């Protein structure tokens, strides 16, 4: 029973990181109808920025906050400079731009910081004042911090004027323009926010998977699985989907014979399964278009 609980709690911790990635992906998807395949590599890059800041002597938390802020700006700039010029281009062109971003971030990170694996410090102290057999301090911190961040994001969208405008711009751009919303800037803001949320995920997962340019490859895949499971049209669903995927991944690893080798396969099976049997996900809306 202890093992089961340990697995579940650790799954929730890693799952909450998947939730961050899933939410970032869904935010961009809602505004543009495309998956940002570079979301993981952007988060990886943010994590390297934090690592560099720590190397320069910044306290871990300051490095975290600065990296999240820098990621926000970088996200806005990427949207304005790279994504906006192709916004009316055919779907394939846009996908290729996203894949190009992925490759560029990966290569540039390897070029600047090399492909060697680096340890990354946890944001949370080893000693939290109590000991638990069930969950380690980093995992506990991850759950608390991500839930806090996600709550902030939801409050922003739910209760602020700009949050409402961003939802309106994503849902109905023409109508949003007609009430004076600058839809282009809302998109850029969305990219900034998504990059920040991704950065949180990257910095939290780095102490677990270690820092290297490919560290987000698996995380992004699980994030996609979470987003699809919850429903790409439902931010709340995506967050829940991320958590579920994290927990399921751990259970599969332990209880399915040979499962520890099959974790990533499981994520892919989940992605294919959802797309085939329930494309809208658990909480998504089925979009019906008149033709």
């Amino acid at each position, binding site marked *: 029973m202890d093992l089961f609980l340990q697995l579940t709690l650790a799954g929730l911790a890693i799952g909450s990181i998947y939730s961050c990635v899933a939410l970032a992906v869904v935010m961009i998807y809602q505004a543009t109808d495309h998956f940002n395949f570079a979301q993981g590599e952007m988060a990886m890059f943010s994590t390297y920025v934090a690592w560099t800041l720590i190397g320069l002597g910044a306290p871990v938390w300051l490095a975290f906050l600065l990296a999240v802020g820098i990621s926000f700006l970088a996200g806005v700039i990427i949207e304005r400079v790279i994504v906006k010029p192709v916004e009316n281009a055919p779907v394939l062109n846009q996908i290729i731009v996203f894949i190009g971003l992925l490759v560029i971030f990966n290569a540039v990170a390897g070029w600047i910081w090399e492909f060697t694996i680096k340890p990354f410090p946890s944001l949370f102290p080893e000693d939290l004042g109590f000991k638990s057999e069930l969950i380690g301090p980093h995992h506990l911190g991850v759950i608390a911090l991500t839930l806090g961040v996600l709550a902030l994001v939801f409050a922003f969208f739910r209760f602020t004027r700009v949050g409402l405008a961003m939802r309106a711009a994503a*849902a*109905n751009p023409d109508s949003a323009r007609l009430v004076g919303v600058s839809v282009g800037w809302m998109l850029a803001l969305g990219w900034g926010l998504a990059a920040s949320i991704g950065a949180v995920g990257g910095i939290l997962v780095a102490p677990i998977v270690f820092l290297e340019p490919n560290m987000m490859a698996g995380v992004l895949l699980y994030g996609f699985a979470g987003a699809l499971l919850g429903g790409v049209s439902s931010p709340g669903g995506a967050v829940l989907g991320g958590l579920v995927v994290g927990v399921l991944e751990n259970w599969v690893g332990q209880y399915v014979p040979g499962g520890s080798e099959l974790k990533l396969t499981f994520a892919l099976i989940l992605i294919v399964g959802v797309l085939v049997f329930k494309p809208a996900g658990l909480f998504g809306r089925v979009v019906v278009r008149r033709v």
Partner: protein
Amino acid sequence: MAFLEVRGLEAYYRQTQALFGVDFVLDEGSITAVLGANGAGKTTTLRAICRMVRTEGEVVFDGQDLSGLSTERVVGLGIAHVPEGRGTFVRQSVEENLQLGAYTRKNKADIAADMESVYGYFPRLGERRRQQAGTLSGGEQQMLAIGRALMLRPKLMLLDEPSFGLAPLIVQEIYEIMARIREREGTSMLLVEQNASIALELADHAYLLETGRGVRGGESSLLRDDEDIRRSYLGY
């Protein structure tokens, strides 16, 4: 100088030209109707004023040339567009839709007061303020679209077929409320309609469009009484 002056307005959807030189003026506080058959360019005229299509020619509003401005900037000048299809934010609540209408304004107290006044004009929206806007009936969504436009405290309202797809009784109700809005707020309106008889009742002036060109214009009563025009253009 007229409040809104449109001169030689041409509009293009990609390579296709939809307006071939439309001219008209609108005086402050007045209601002008733009009438015509399907495809005459009525909706395009409104979209051209809001800079939603590529245009040539001149649109001057309250002394300012609108060409070269973005749609958001035009809205910021006090032009509220009630679009074709109502433009409802279907997943947002009625209240959020109205808040979006006031997006360019800052004073929270004023916004709250205006929201109550919209609920005054449209009590049914008040009853449904927490409801998801997509669940409203067609008539209620039309009311919501007008309410959203009012939240801008507009100097000029552009209304695109407020009668579209609605039962005659609801159309009557909406037009009565529009008359009351004009009376109380003094808002100028540019009204596009296929339902010519009801539009001519409300409007002071009217212009007739035919395949992207203005063919006649003048006081509504003159157009209404002109037998030829009625038969050939207005179809009643």
